[in-house]
């Protein structure tokens, strides 16, 4: 305890110097925490946007459809799937969809698209796509309505009420086509999604593609997304190998990989910030050691071993690191709180953000990873910075050190 006391008091021998180092550590931590929470916010927003607007928590397809989404690979007995989903207590909502790729043409232009045939009533609660409607309305259930992205409408030079023709390969190998009337335009977080996705009534899609009552997929929401692994395993065992049950982590592997890569890259980022701080710590601790050469000589003379000298100097640096980190984290948290409520308006960069599927307002996300990265890595780096000064103190010869002026 005396050693800890001694280390603590040594820290405040030169208050101004310690405060300067603490401030630099704190500023580094504030900047890192804000950057980290905002970056995580962007990634989570990308993921939540995709999951919420279209992908949903989990999807069921006929086996192989995810890798090879051809119209022939459909679910022939959707009633069986519905029976299973209805009886599962952890499935909150589900909806059957028809999904295929095709061409959408207007009088002036055409564009390759992903046609999604949905049950408007069920889809209303399942996804958030309705909230992105900027002109007209979402599908009302009337036949041959189509909802398209605003960007696609501009490309095709169509507006509300205009007619467009969708074409795609039907299940029997013929070319299916259907005339639709534009009922609504949406503008989502992703310009790419707006250019390539259209929504039509499922019955119209089934008719156009000669599917009868067959569907391409079931999309669903569960009560607790953290239990997706267990739920999907249970559904797999009930449905058999004929079907694939894919949680969003399998449906959006790139985004999930991005999150994992981000976690690892942030550790490296914290280490880099820590390395920058190390130089301040080395300087401070070296000055502190040089100022106390005589004292280290006395400590060694009265029998203090090198291990304890090392412990004392490292503890001083640890205190610096901990105080600086805690202060920096608290300040960072105070900045984070309003940002997490009101978000950070990045409208100036909305174009590039939309291309990544992120909205113009970014909400930072504070995770356990942010807390552990900041509270562990930075103090550890501070201790690392004190190793060299501590070794210098350990190498002092008591006789010379005591005489040092």
């Amino acid at each position, binding site marked *: 305890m005396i*050693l800890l006391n001694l280390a603590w008091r040594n820290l405040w*021998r030169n208050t101004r110097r310690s405060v300067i180092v603490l401030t630099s550590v704190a500023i580094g931590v504030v900047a890192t925490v804000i950057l980290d929470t905002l970056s995580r916010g962007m990634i989570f927003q990308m993921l939540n946007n995709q999951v919420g607007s279209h992908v949903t928590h989990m999807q069921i397809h006929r086996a192989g459809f995810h890798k090879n989404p051809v119209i022939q690979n459909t679910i022939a007995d959707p009633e069986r799937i519905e029976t299973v989903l209805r009886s599962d207590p952890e499935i909150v909502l589900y909806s059957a969809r028809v999904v295929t790729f095709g061409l959408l043409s207007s009088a002036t232009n055409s564009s390759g698209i992903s046609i999604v045939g949905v049950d408007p009533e069920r889809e209303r609660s399942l996804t958030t796509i309705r909230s992105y409607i900027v002109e007209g309305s979402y599908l009302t259930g009337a036949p041959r309505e189509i909802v398209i992205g605003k960007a696609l409408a501009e490309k095709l030079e169509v507006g509300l009420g205009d007619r467009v023709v969708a074409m795609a390969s039907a299940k029997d190998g013929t070319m299916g086509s259907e005339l639709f009337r534009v009922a609504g335009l949406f503008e989502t977080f992703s310009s790419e999604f707006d250019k390539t996705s259209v929504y039509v009534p499922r019955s119209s899609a089934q008719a156009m593609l000669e599917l009868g009552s067959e569907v391409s997929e079931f999309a669903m929401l569960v009560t607790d997304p953290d239990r997706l692994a267990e739920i999907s395993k249970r559904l797999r065992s009930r449905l058999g190998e004929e079907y694939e049950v894919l949680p969003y982590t399998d449906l959006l592997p790139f985004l999930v990989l991005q999150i994992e890569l981000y976690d690892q890259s942030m550790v490296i980022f914290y280490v880099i910030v820590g390395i920058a701080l190390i130089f301040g710590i080395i300087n401070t601790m070296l000055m502190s050691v040089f100022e106390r050469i*005589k004292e280290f000589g006395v400590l060694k003379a009265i*029998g203090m*071993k090198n291990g304890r000298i090392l412990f004392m100097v490292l503890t001083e640096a640890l205190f610096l690191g901990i105080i600086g980190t805690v202060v920096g984290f608290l300040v960072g948290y105070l900045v984070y709180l309003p940002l997490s409520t009101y978000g950070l308006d990045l409208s100036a960069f909305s174009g590039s953000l939309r291309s990544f599927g992120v909205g113009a307002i970014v909400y930072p996300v504070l995770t356990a990873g942010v807390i552990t990265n900041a509270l562990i890595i930075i103090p550890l780096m501070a201790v690392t910075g004190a190793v060299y000064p501590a070794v210098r103190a350990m190498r002092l010869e*008591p006789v010379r050190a*005591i005489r040092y002026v």
Partner: protein
Amino acid sequence: MTNPILQTKGLEKIYENDGVPVHAVRGIDLDVFAEDFLVIAGPSGSGKTTLLNLLGALDTPSAGRVFFEGTDLSSKSKSELASLRLQRMGFIFQAYNLIPVLTALENIEFTMMLRGIDKAERHARAQAVMEELGIAELAHKRPNHMSGGQQQRVAIARAIVTDPAVVLADEPTANIDTATGKALLDLMERMNSEKHITFIFSSHDPQVIGRGKRLLCLRDGRIDSPRE
């Protein structure tokens, strides 16, 4: 006759000063016995502090041997020598050298903490020694709030609180006035006679020299005139 606590045989110390070899100690044979009150005297540069450092295992000889309680110190590692100093020796320095951020009580407890003595015991022992040396009222003062004499009393308390076999004092009265010096010497004499602690001084202060039960005069690193 009892065995010496400290013994030197053919002790030599040569160190370099700006590249010039300086023969600080030349072939000293010395026996220090329990309860000695030995003063190593001599003019500046005579080698008395170097000899004290060699006796206190703070420095290593260039030639010759130092034996502490019969053990050759040259066979010990630095860590073992640190343990020996901690367990069996006490040190008093000319400039007191208390730890400035610790109170008097904490300074005295410090060596006991290094020895692993539990908090209650070291607290009790430190307070007892402070009472004995008449410095109890200084317990919670830091060195910068004490006079030189008070600091040296605390340094003495720090040196003797662990009941060492020998206390080595380098010019202990050099930085304090005569009256305070006399009081400190009285104190150390009392510790010597009552607690049977062996004291070895290096000093050129006539007051200290006069108190020595044994006197060893050094000149140019050699024993000039021993007085028993």
